[in-house]
């Protein structure tokens, strides 16, 4: 489990000048012509949007950490509504993996389109606020999911399995989806040249996974024993807000970089 399978971005290789490609951020729409004769040193990033590897890895690790804290603590949170059934864990893991897959895909596409770290802040800030608000937002929805079954009648076996997945999806899909975008996005912004993409993507994915590993153990061994669930959501939400702030301030283009000619 874990946000590991970030897909290295290799779709767009458009020279910095061509910013055309109007509107179509849709992944898959971008099967544009990769220059067959691309030299290995071909530049991927316009000079002003260049991100250094270590800060990028730190951001990815923090994102990975937050995802797994939400996953672990979330399974516990859902138990008060769906019980400690096996299916709560199954659906929590499943839903987070779906969020990761979707986040990687969309995040990669957005990276090609935006190529600015700063834009991530606009995704992360609402996600942080949402995470902080989970203890208020979730109960009415979870109540509805449980109470739509007639009282004093057994819940059909299918819904015994799917209800926890619904609950988990409503609460945890959105924040995990956004956080998963970080890895492909950061790979895109950090890769300066095609010949470095392997190393950069390896670094970012590894950093994100290391963050996730820390998230599992810190959440399970430490946080749950010392903080209330709503406090954990508040701290995690705060961390995501902070991450948004970092993306805002660390935007490489924000500082004036002396122009340099690529290739």
């Amino acid at each position, binding site marked *: 489990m874990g946000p590991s399978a970030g897909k290295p971005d290799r779709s767009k290789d458009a020279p910095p000048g061509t910013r055309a490609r109007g509107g179509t951020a849709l992944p898959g729409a971008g099967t544009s012509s990769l220059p067959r004769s691309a030299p290995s040193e071909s530049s991927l990033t316009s000079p002003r949007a260049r991100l250094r590897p270590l800060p990028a890895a730190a951001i990815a690790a923090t994102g990975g950490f937050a995802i797994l804290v939400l996953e672990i603590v979330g399974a516990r949170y859902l138990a008060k509504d769906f*019980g400690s059934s096996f299916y709560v864990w199954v659906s929590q893991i499943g839903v987070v993996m779906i969020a990761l897959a979707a986040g990687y895909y969309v995040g990669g596409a957005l990276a090609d389109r935006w190529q600015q770290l700063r834009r991530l802040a606009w995704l992360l800030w609402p996600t942080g606020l949402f995470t902080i608000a989970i*203890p208020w937002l979730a109960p009415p929805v979870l109540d509805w999911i449980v109470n739509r079954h007639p009282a004093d009648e057994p819940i059909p076996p299918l819904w015994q399995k799917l209800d926890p997945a619904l609950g988990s999806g409503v609460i945890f899909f959105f924040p995990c989806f956004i956080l998963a975008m970080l890895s492909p996005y950061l790979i895109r912004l950090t890769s300066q040249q095609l010949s470095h993409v392997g190393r950069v993507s390896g670094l970012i994915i590894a950093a994100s996974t290391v963050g996730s590993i820390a998230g599992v153990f810190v959440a399970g061994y430490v946080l749950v024993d*010392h903080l209330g669930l709503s406090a954990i959501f508040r701290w995690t939400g705060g961390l995501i807000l902070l991450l948004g702030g970092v993306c805002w301030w660390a935007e490489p283009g924000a500082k004036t970089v002396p122009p340099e000619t690529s290739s």
Partner: protein
Amino acid sequence: MRPGSQVGPGRPGWLLVAVLSVASATAQVVFEATSPYHNIRVEDSGGLRLLTFDGTLQTRMSLRNPLEGHFEYIEYFHLPWLWNTQIARVLMIGLGGGSAQRQWAAYYPEVYFETVEIDPLVVQVAQQYFGVREGPNQRVVVEDGRMYLRRSRQRWDVLLVDAYTENRYGAFIPYHLATREFFELARDRLTTNGIVAYNAIGTLNAWQSDVIGSLYRTLREVFPQVYLFPAQTSQNIVLVATRDSRRRTRLELEQMARVLQTSGRVRMPGFLSRVRALREEPPGHFARCGVLTDDFAPVDGLLTRGR
């Protein structure tokens, strides 16, 4: 309950008696399977039928007489009669090998007894190997206990909770069955004279006493009176919480126990000695234990601490 389906000591035609002949000192595995929750094993050893989850004993039952061989703590589930002599409806969370179910069906066949068990395979095993029979007064529902209570509008005179599991890494308590919110829900589903009897694993002063203390304090938040009954032969403590606000003394409870036994209301042998296990004052360190809530219930952390 139809007489034919009755679980009772006076029925030599009991299915399990047939197995007695093969029972010997060597354990014989009768059944083994893994459910989403446990590795479940049934074995016969030394005239006893044993149920283990993940290698830890859950239930013991004499093959000669299914009403014997059980663990001592099961007998504390009869204590609610001390507060209500008119018990008509009992809900139990956790089935295991059905020791309590067999006893209640045998001793109080007129009481409606319903069990909520989360693991469907446990239900099958209890029916097939431990003589748990469903009938008009014995019903088993497969669901999470808290979900069941939440979605049910029925009222119960007694709620019995036996949902702990234990293995060599320690005891595990489902945290959502130990919080103030859960006990509030339980109280709302009880009749005005309702009683909760809650089996916990641990000791009063050493092993896992922090969890016992937290459970005690949490029950006290919701119920006016909570009584502690530590088992003598195992590390179990049964907490009895009553909606009745009057505190009973040891003397009163023992007198009541005698009345119940002589009138034949409680037929279980040894009832009085179970009542005598009462620990009247909680240990002093309970005052330092925290109340468990849905938001903060560090049961896993507490369980790995001594005190």
